[in-house]
């Protein structure tokens, strides 16, 4: 995979908000980083460090206090909790809001996200993994250049998590850039081509790591020397921000 760096995607981004008690809280300050073209960029940070806000700003759904985001294509945002419409079946969810309905394309995407045979199933009472596949399909059918995903693997079991990461990596082969957040070192390292480590609020960039593990990720990678060493390095980077923050270390 060609992992050529695009251009500055996020430039000197700062977000300050006033909380319910009237205190001004700086969520992050002067964040600048590039994202990969046709790759997975993961923002790794403790919970509560403003990752969701950062993604909303990147997606154009929220305005930064300072700084800018440079984009050159359609961007689609998938929020952290399930948001597939529970009264519509899989196919209706994918089609909702679309003017052009190309059946072949729809079937191709349903099959791509692994929902073949489930077209008429409704997401209500289905697993988070199932709903996430619908949300991915709903994004793909809109032919985005970037898909921004907030904490996609929360409340997902390990087996499904690995399957979803493989699916996300397969999407990048279509020339789509994926930006996602995680607070789990192992899953972030397993998923990413590029890792951006953010500190606890006010967040700043601790490090940016190019992940040169094989692009074909399988379960054996967890035991590889390279993976274990990278994981240790990241843990060491987070040593001083871990106190007081929930930080998950297992997949």
């Amino acid at each position, binding site marked *: 995979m060609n992992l050529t760096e695009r251009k500055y995607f996020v430039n000197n981004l700062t977000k300050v908000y006033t909380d319910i008690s009237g205190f001004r809280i700086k969520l992050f300050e002067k964040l600048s980083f590039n994202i990969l073209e046709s790759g997975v960029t993961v923002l790794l940070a403790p919970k509560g460090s403003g990752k969701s806000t950062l993604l*909303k700003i990147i*997606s154009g*759904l929220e305005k930064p206090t300072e700084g800018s985001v440079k984009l050159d294509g359609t961007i*689609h*945002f*998938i*929020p*952290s*909790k*399930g*948001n597939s*419409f*529970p*009264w519509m079946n899989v196919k209706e969810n994918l089609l*909702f*809001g679309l003017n052009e309905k190309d059946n072949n394309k729809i079937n191709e995407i349903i099959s791509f996200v692994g929902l073949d045979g489930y077209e008429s199933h*409704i997401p*209500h*009472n289905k697993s988070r993994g199932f709903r996430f596949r619908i*949300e991915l399909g*709903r994004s793909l059918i*809109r032919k985005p250049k970037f898909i921004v995903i907030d904490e996609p693997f929360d409340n997902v079991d390990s087996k499904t998590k690995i399957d979803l990461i493989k699916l996300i990596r397969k999407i990048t082969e279509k020339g789509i850039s994926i930006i996602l957040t995680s607070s789990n070192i192992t899953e972030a390292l397993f998923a990413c081509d590029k890792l951006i480590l953010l500190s606890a609020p006010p967040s700043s960039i601790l490090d940016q790591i190019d992940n040169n593990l094989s692009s074909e990720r399988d379960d054996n990678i967890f035991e590889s020397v390279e993976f274990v060493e990278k994981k240790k390095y990241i843990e060491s980077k987070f040593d001083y921000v871990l106190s007081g923050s929930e930080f998950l270390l297992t997949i």
Partner: protein
Amino acid sequence: MTHEDLNTNKSRVIFFSRLISVLIFIYILLFEFILLPNQFLPKPTILIESFLSLFSDYNFRYALLHTTSIIYAVIFLLYWMYRFLNSVTIKFSSLIPFKLNYTSYAVIFAPLFFSFWLDIPLWGEVLYVFIVVDFQFFKTIHNSLRDIKPEYIIASKSLEISQKDAETTIIWNLLKPEIFKSYKQINITTWMSVILFEYFTALDGTGSVLTSLVLYHDFSGIIAFMIVITLLIFVANLVIGYLHKKFADWEQ
């Protein structure tokens, strides 16, 4: 609904059917054959006569038709009114920055005031039922709007769905299960409130039959009246439960 839920419901129905059968048996045994005539409960044979008398002497059939039509026509009308004026409701609701936590049972006291102000046959009652149902219905809609997960709104913005489509399709469909859930409560409290309203105004409807029953000290008639109304509310709640499963059986 899962198999476990279905089994739990089935066992609940079986349990209550058995309990009611046992209570009816005890009632017949005690009040028909063992106890002397008393002021506590009427004899079962007299109660059966009272049921027949309710319909033949008190014109209960017309009264039931009158009250039932008004209550359910207003509920139906309000549902569609909120459906079509969803955008207005959302805007109005956003002006109230907190959840409404008044109890729906408050409407039971409403007849104390409204029965004097709305002492007009038919339209006065229609207006009263409208106020009573809306008082409860708006609370459900307002509180449910505040409970909608922001992820749905963010997702709809990201999907570039128009504000109008988001309000009429997404938000309304997310509200629907809560509306159907609240209907059971609304059904009970509205019936209680409307019977009291009709009782005080004594113009028309089931409550006016109660006025006559009280006037004639027809104790067994009052018991028969209560049984019919309870059964009616129970059946209506079964229908509401069925409609909920058929049209809004999902959660966010």
